[in-house]
């Protein structure tokens, strides 16, 4: 349940990879040596680890199309644990190296295998694996913040804080907690009142106005093919910060600060047959909140129709592309968007020349160098809840536009970006009056709910969509 080493690597656009931070945990290494006996493989120096890590992640030699060590088809890329094949000073395989990468950063650690080394134990039997994953994810969000993209100065200052952060959360290689965002180093430590102990993760006292802010965000994904043989897909997943009472929620995952759960809440599952008899709320979550904003619970839900039904038809005629698009807003969806935009990219063609396209509502922006049409639908659909686009585009430019291996010939998509305030598709909501706070201070309760889109695709029905639906095949 410990880590032998931790590395943080930056790899800007595949160039100039360097180790920005590393930490060896000597006492854990000492244990690793005893545990592994003759099959012990020492942790090499960081420059060697860097090279091996890049090779294993397929990032080394970006200009070479084939490198045997990197590209072997036998490589088990599907495991979360990498093998680093060391050649010098001694041959050996360093396993299991966990690595996560986001943007320019690669974070890696080597969990201790506290089981007999031969035969190699399954990952699932080593608690240090899930601990390593949790810890890496925590360090990642500490370094990159929730936005995921800090400037280089911000990153440098957080890296500089890491030694003192590790002193608290992982002093000797056994991770105790993930680094806390926002509030570094020794805050005032509360002690309990009476016999009630305080959670270890509540490291400070709240100062300021007593406000409970509950935000419910539903995210909708969709794949619409407009084709008989392909089943359209959509599902909803949600991050909410307090329980609703509404339609059945599935795959509920709760934050560890939730102290108890009703077994009915957990029964409904998206991967199973929904038999209609499932629990339908109310969902109650007693919890003791940590100091920082957190995700109390998440759920998925299956709704009968997509909020916006789209149809997309392309027709190639005489060096021109004839475009025809319709969007219908479902009647259950509030016709009041914070934003709603449709993006129509065209790949593997020359740059656009003449664009003769009319929209029934909203505004059309043409970006000729990107071969992209952006259709701003504004805040409202018209009364009859339907909008259309019709017209022709000629790709008569002399230079080639952007390319994409997926979208060749008539394979093309529209991607929708929208946000609707004060509504959810599942009907899930947080009852402001049911938020009970056991506190001497009377906090103000604020609740909100939003519906936003993510990966909302409408594929051209006259082209071959690049996927088929698994459900109907199996």
């Amino acid at each position, binding site marked *: 349940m410990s880590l032998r080493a931790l590395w943080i690597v930056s790899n800007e656009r595949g160039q100039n990879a360097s180790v920005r931070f590393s930490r060896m945990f000597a006492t854990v290494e000492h244990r690793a040596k005893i545990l592994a006996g003759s099959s012990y493989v020492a942790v090499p120096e960081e420059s060697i680890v860097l090279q091996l890590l890049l090779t294993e992640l397929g990032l080394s030699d970006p200009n070479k199309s084939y490198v045997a060590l990197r590209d072997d088809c036998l490589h088990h890329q599907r495991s979360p644990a990498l093998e680093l094949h060391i050649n010098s000073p001694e041959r050996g395989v360093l396993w299991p190296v966990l690595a996560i990468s986001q943007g320019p950063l690669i974070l890696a650690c080597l969990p201790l295998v506290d089981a007999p080394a031969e035969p190699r134990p399954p990952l699932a039997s080593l608690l240090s694996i899930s601990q390593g994953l*949790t810890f890496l994810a925590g360090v990642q969000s500490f370094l990159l913040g929730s936005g995921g993209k800090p400037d280089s100065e911000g990153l440098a200052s957080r890296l500089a804080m890491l030694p003192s952060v590790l002193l608290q959360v992982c002093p000797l290689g056994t991770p105790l907690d993930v680094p806390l965002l926002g509030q570094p180093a020794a805050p005032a430590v509360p002690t309990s009142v009476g016999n009630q102990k305080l959670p270890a993760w509540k490291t400070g006292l709240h100062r300021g106005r007593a406000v409970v802010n509950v935000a419910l965000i539903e995210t909708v994904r969709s794949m619409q093919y407009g084709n008989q043989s392909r089943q359209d897909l959509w599902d909803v997943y949600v991050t909410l910060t307090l329980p609703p009472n509404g339609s059945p929620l599935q795959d509920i995952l709760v934050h560890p600060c939730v102290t108890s759960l009703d077994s009915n809440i957990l029964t409904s599952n998206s*991967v199973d047959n929904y038999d209609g008899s499932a629990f339908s709320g109310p969902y109650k979550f007693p919890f003791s909140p940590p100091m920082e904003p957190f995700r109390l619970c998440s759920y998925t839900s299956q709704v009968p129709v997509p909020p916006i039904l789209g149809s997309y038809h392309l027709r190639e005629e005489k060096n021109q592309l004839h475009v025809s698009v319709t969007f219908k807003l479902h009647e259950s969806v509030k016709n009041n968007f914070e934003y709603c935009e449709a993006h129509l990219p065209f790949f593997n063609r020359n740059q656009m020349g003449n664009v003769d396209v009319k929209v029934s509502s909203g505004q059309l922006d043409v970006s000729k160098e990107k071969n992209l049409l952006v259709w701003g639908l504004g805040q409202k659909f018209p009364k009859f809840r339907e909008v259309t686009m019709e017209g022709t585009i000629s790709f008569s430019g002399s230079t080639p536009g952007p390319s994409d291996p997926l979208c060749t010939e008539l394979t093309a998509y529209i991607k929708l970006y929208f946000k609707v305030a004060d509504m959810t598709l599942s009907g899930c909501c947080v009852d402001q009056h049911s938020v009970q706070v056991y506190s001497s201070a009377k906090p103000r309760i604020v609740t909100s709910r939003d519906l936003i889109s993510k990966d909302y695709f409408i594929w051209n029905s006259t082209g071959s969509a690049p996927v088929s639906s698994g459900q109907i*095949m199996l």
Partner: protein
Amino acid sequence: HRAIMAANWVERISAFSCSPSRFLCGSTAEAFLAELLCELRQDRATYSVKVLLLSPLCEHPNLLCPTDSLGEETALELMSMFVQCPPKFVQFGCRLLLALTSVLVCSCCVSIHSRASQDFLDLLLQIAQDTSDLYSDGAVRPLRVTACDCLRELEACSPGLLSQRLELLSGLRQREPSHLHQAYTGLHTLVLRNAVYQLTQEPDAGAQHLKALLGGNTTVAWEAEQDLVPIDNKDSAVLSSLTLGPMGTVPTLQTGPDCKELRSILSSLLEESYLLTPLCQAALLHRLTEVVAMVPAVPPSVFRAQLLRLLGTSEVCLLHATLLMKCAFTDSLFSAEDEAFMLKRLVALSQHPLLGTPEKLFYMDCILHFPENRPIGCSDGDETLPVLLTPRLASAIVPTVFNDSATMLARLNLLSMVCLEEGEEGEEGKGIAYLYEHLTSLLHILENGGSREIVVTFFRAAFLFLFYFCHIERYASSLVGKLCNLYLCHTNLAPHLINLVDQTQDKLTESNWAVELLKALQGVITEAPFTKLTLHDLSWHLKMLARVAEEGQIPQHSTLRFLSGVITSSSSSLCASGNWRLGNGLLGVCCCLLVHPALDSLLIPLADILQHLTCHYRDTDIQDHARLYYAILTTLSREKIAGVNLNLYDAESCPGEANAAMEIFSIRLHFNLTDNHYEELSDISVPCLFRERPSPKVSLRLKPRRPYPTTLHASAIFTTQDGLSWLTVLPDIYVTFQQVFLSPPMSPAWGRNSKLSLFEGLWEEIHSGSGEDSSDYVTSLFCCQLKEAGLLALVKEHFLPFLISDLRAKEDFKVLLFLPPQSHVLLHIGSKEDAVHFDIATDNWHLLPHISSYLLTFQSTRGAAALH
């Protein structure tokens, strides 16, 4: 000054941690340690620098303190620093404790219970018990946490170390009101687990012993405290987690039903478990799972109250700890409904939009190692499908082209297993059809020029598909066709295809798919019209055909036709271009064909190709190799060719040792003159080098313009089996003066008298200065001390081939040396009373210095001499 010093240390410490070995090259570990300790002791450095100075001791204590005595000394120093550390530098104090732990553990002081480690343990326990900070501002509280962490690590490295303190630690945990209770809980749990393990190893231990241990009253149960021997931590078993589940054998402690004390401790720990961070909670649950597994008297149901909370968690480590719990207790804690729920949850989490890729991969791994309540058979760590994973359930994680590579491959692997299982039970499912369609979608992306990552992913997916389904003829042959088409459009995929062929051949030994693919590739390559063939494609085709030629089962006539066509066709300017790389590619194919089992039927066309290359390829290296192969082909027997090449393959198959075992086909020697006394030398090829035969001798034939000694520079060019050419410089070759000596061109029919008259005639001509080039004539005298026998030996040794007079005339020798192209040296050697006289006459006075230094070589061994 301080700032400079600090910056200097920052640089040095970072250089050390970057590469300790390189850093210590410039210094010794001892010196560096002394420097660190000295700087830490003094007051020059700020505490933030001092914190930095401790990091080498924390991270690499075994480099700096390789022996226990050095560890002991260093620890004593650090402890005295700790005592003197002002209370306000808490961070430094904490790091001192960490450094002490690292040094003492890694130098094995802890395991041998050294004096310093005992003192340190006492110090830590003292800090852990000092709760005075609760009533002050809490500034030194981090010290208490760190002390607990250090104690936990010491216990982890030397299990049983704190067994006797169990009651103390339990009390500290229960009484701690601040959030520090987590540190005490972690420490207490580990010590409890190790103490119980320790008891399981005692043959007679039972309920009383356990009770005594928990009560801190060990002396009651044991007559002497020493009876409970600390576990030998050189034995790795004690450091391991217990292997829970059907494969594991858990040591047990028989206590009888009465286990009140242990139960109450367990329930108190579990009741407060939700107060811990997920990471600590997971560790706690796992340790307690081990304890309950070791003590059968405690029912697993102690965990029941926690289960719902754990099953609903969003934290990967908590769910994992729950899975391990299920592994240990199966249906004594988890009902069939729980089991079904957990599996569905794992499937849902494997594709949950909020989770990152590594977590999803981990959950898929957990599905394939799902701890079933009633496992069928004992899978020893291999991936197996849980019985409850129905195709319908698995359909939630079908691979799609929108997945990232790793997720897609993991899904493909899992779904393939599901389909395979289905296929065994009934009709060949739609599932496989879906997976094949998915594979072709990927292939389609490649055809449209996918990125390098997608290319690599496709070939991995193809291997996985073949791994499971290569026995299904329909898909196997369809894939062959699609790969051939792909190759024709993207010949640069040749290395990937060859890799796929190699791996399928190696891993799927029962399948002939790899050969089928190669045959088909040979077909599409050789049947395509030459007119469209670019040099770029040709170079990949040659690589591919070389691989095809390695297969004995595949007829090679079409390959030969192709090669022949490529080099002879009128549209091809290949031979004229003399492109070395392509030539090497051509030879690579030929080389493989030389060992093809059907070589007999290939003999003539192959010989024709090699001969054509020998004569027409405008690169001498290629020509020479072609000539060599031709020679091998036409002169050696089949068995011998196989022998030659087998050696080469051995060398190739282990690339690591390739350099050591390098086999060389032929060497081309090249010479450079250092002056213009000789004609230019042409290169010499040394063919057919065989390890087991004596190395061939090479004679150099020099043609002097002037018969002077000289030096030749020499180099060798050779080609190894991997097709690389190497150039190496050989030692210089010295041509001495005497190596230029020849006998004058005389008819062999001449008798001694005729030769003597020639000598006399020349002698007379030179002395009289009457010839055509008489300006070059010169005579001289060289003397040296020699006995009569010595003279005879000298003449025999050096001048016998050039001797004109009779050897028996022991006092008068006449020697005639011819130095090409047209110089002569005549020696009249005779013993006089004081010395041996060498009378010299030559028609080239330029030679005199060389004659002199040559004759002086006799002097060095035979005494004084003089040249007049």
